[in-house]
C-alpha cells in the first residue's frame, strides 16, 4: 500500500512540475474553469435557497383559497356564498378575506391593502411593511394619507412597521381595519375578495376542492400545493433563463477545455515520448495525466463552489441579483438562509470534474501506446 501511495505521490510531483513549466497557460485554464463553476454554483445556490425559503414559509398559507370568476375575471364574493360552503363536509373553517391593490403615485408603486380584525389593527390606523415604510420615510406614530379611487383623501396613523425580517412577504403590505378597508375602496357591505378555507384532514383537500367546484361552478379553488408549485416553477424558470443566457459561456468553456484536454501540444507529445523512452509504462503515463486532469478540475470545482457560497450568502449574490430576483419599485431587502442541496452539488461536480478528467485520457492513451520514437519525431 505504502509503495503504491509513494508511487502516486511521485507521479503527482512530476505532474505538478510539468504543469508549472506551462504556468501561465494552466493558471489561465484553472481560473476560467473556477469562474465557470462559480457562476453555475452561484445560480444553483441562490435559486435553491429562494425555493426552499418559499416552500417553508408558504407551507403556512391557507389550505384552499376560493375565488369567484365572472367572464374569466376574478370577481367579488357575494353575500350568502360563504354559508353555502359551510355545508361541505371536511371544511373546518371558512373566512371571507378583504384585500386589494392601491397604486401610490408618490413613489409609483403598487401596495397590497389587506383588512385585519379590529383586535389587530384599530380603526384609523395602519400597519405597513418595512420596504414601504422605507420608500415613504414612515415610522410608527407618523400619519400618512392616501387618495382613494373615488377621490377622497384618507389619513391613517402608522401604528407599527412590520418586522424587517419579514420583508420577503410583507414588503408592500398595508394592514388596516375592515371598516377602513370597506370605506377606502367603497366595498359593498357583505362582499369579500375571496374566501380562505381550512380543511382539517390534508387527505381531503382535493376532495373538498372537487365538491366546491361542483356546488359552486363559478368558483375557482386554489390549493396550497398549487401555490407551492407556482413558486417552484417561478424559480425553476428564472434559473432556466439564466442558464440559457450562460449557455454561450458554458459552450465556450467546453470547447476550450476539450481543446486543451484532447489536443496534445508537440511539447507534451515529446514529453510522453521521452518518458516512454526512459522506461515509463503506458499505465504510468495515463495515471500521471489523470492526476493532472483531476488536480485541475478538483481545484477549480472546490475554489468555484466556495467562492459561490460566499458570494450568495455573504454578498447577497450581487452578480446575478437583478436577473434572479427580478425587479420592483418596492423591492424587499432580505438575507437568504443558507441551503445546500447535496444532489445538486453532486450533479454539478459530476458535470464539471468528470468530463475534463475523461477528456484528458483519450489522447494520452493514444500517444502513450504509440512507439516513443515516432511520438518524439512527430
Amino acid at each position, binding site marked *: 500500500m505504502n509503495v503504491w501511495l509513494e508511487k502516486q505521490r*511521485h507521479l*503527482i*510531483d512530476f505532474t*505538478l*512540475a510539468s504543469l508549472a513549466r506551462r504556468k501561465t497557460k494552466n493558471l489561465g485554464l484553472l481560473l476560467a474553469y473556477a469562474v465557470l463553476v462559480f457562476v453555475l454554483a452561484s445560480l444553483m445556490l441562490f435559486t435553491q435557497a429562494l425555493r426552499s*425559503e*418559499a416552500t*417553508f*414559509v*408558504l*407551507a*403556512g*398559507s*391557507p389550505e384552499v*383559497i376560493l*375565488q369567484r*370568476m365572472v367572464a*374569466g*375575471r376574478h370577481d367579488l364574493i357575494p353575500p350568502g356564498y360563504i354559508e353555502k360552503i359551510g355545508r361541505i363536509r371536511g371544511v373546518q373553517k371558512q*373566512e371571507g378575506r378583504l384585500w386589494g391593490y392601491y397604486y401610490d403615485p408618490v413613489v409609483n*408603486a*403598487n401596495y*397590497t391593502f389587506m383588512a*385585519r380584525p379590529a383586535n389587530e389593527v384599530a380603526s384609523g390606523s395602519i400597519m405597513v*411593511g418595512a*420596504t414601504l415604510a422605507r420608500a415613504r420615510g414612515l415610522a410608527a406614530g407618523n400619519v400618512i394619507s392616501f387618495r382613494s379611487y373615488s377621490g377622497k383623501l384618507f389619513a391613517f396613523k402608522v401604528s407599527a412597521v*412590520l418586522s424587517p*425580517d*419579514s420583508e*420577503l*412577504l*410583507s*414588503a*408592500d*403590505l398595508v*394592514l388596516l381595519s375592515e371598516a377602513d378597508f370597506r370605506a377606502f375602496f367603497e366595498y359593498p357591505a357583505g362582499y369579500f375578495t*375571496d374566501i*380562505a378555507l381550512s380543511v382539517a384532514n390534508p387527505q381531503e383537500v382535493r376532495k373538498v376542492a372537487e365538491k366546491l367546484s361542483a356546488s359552486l361552478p363559478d368558483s*375557482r379553488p*386554489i390549493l396550497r400545493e398549487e*401555490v407551492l408549485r*407556482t*413558486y417552484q416553477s*417561478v424559480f425553476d424558470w428564472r434559473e432556466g*433563463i439564466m442558464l440559457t443566457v450562460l449557455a454561450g459561456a458554458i459552450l465556450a468553456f467546453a470547447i476550450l477545455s476539450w481543446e486543451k484536454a484532447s489536443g496534445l501540444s508537440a511539447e507534451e507529445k515529446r514529453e510522453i515520448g521521452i518518458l516512454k523512452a526512459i522506461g515509463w509504462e503506458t499505465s504510468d503515463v495515463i495515471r500521471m495525466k489523470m492526476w493532472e486532469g483531476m488536480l485541475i478540475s478538483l*481545484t477549480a470545482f*472546490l*475554489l468555484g*463552489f*466556495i467562492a459561490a457560497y460566499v458570494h450568495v450568502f455573504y454578498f447577497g449574490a450581487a452578480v446575478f441579483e437583478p436577473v434572479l*430576483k*427580478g425587479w*420592483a*419599485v*418596492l423591492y*424587499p431587502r432580505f438575507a437568504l*438562509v*443558507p441551503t*445546500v442541496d*447535496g444532489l445538486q452539488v453532486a450533479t454539478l461536480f459530476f458535470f464539471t470534474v468528470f468530463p475534463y478528467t475523461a477528456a484528458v485520457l483519450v489522447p494520452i492513451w493514444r500517444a502513450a501506446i504509440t512507439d516513443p520514437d515516432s511520438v518524439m519525431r512527430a
Partner: protein
Amino acid sequence: MRRPSTLAFILLMVMSLGVIAIFAHSWQLTVTDQSRLQANRTLVTQLGLTDLALFSESRYTRHPSQADLHSALQDHPGAFDHFPTGSLISPPAHLTKTHERLAGKTTSPD
C-alpha cells in the same frame, strides 16, 4: 523543501474542509435563521398570505399563485402583455403553424 504533492494535498484538504463546513453550516441552521423562518411562517398563517412580495409590478406578478390564467392579457380585448416576463414564453404551437396549402387541391373554385 516540501514536495509539491504535499502542498497540493494541503491545498485540496483545506478546500475540502471548507466545502464540508459549508454543508455543516447549511444543515445546522442558526437560532436566528430558525426563529426568522418560523416567524415568517407564523405571519403567513396569521395573515393568510399566499405569495412572496418579490415582483409587485402588476397583480399577476405580485400574486402569481392567485392570478387567473389570462390575467396577463385581460386589460382589454387583444391587449399585449405589458411586462417583460410574458415575452419570454413561446406562443402556443397552433399559432405558429402555417396553413395547409390547398392550391389546386380543391374541387370547387375559390
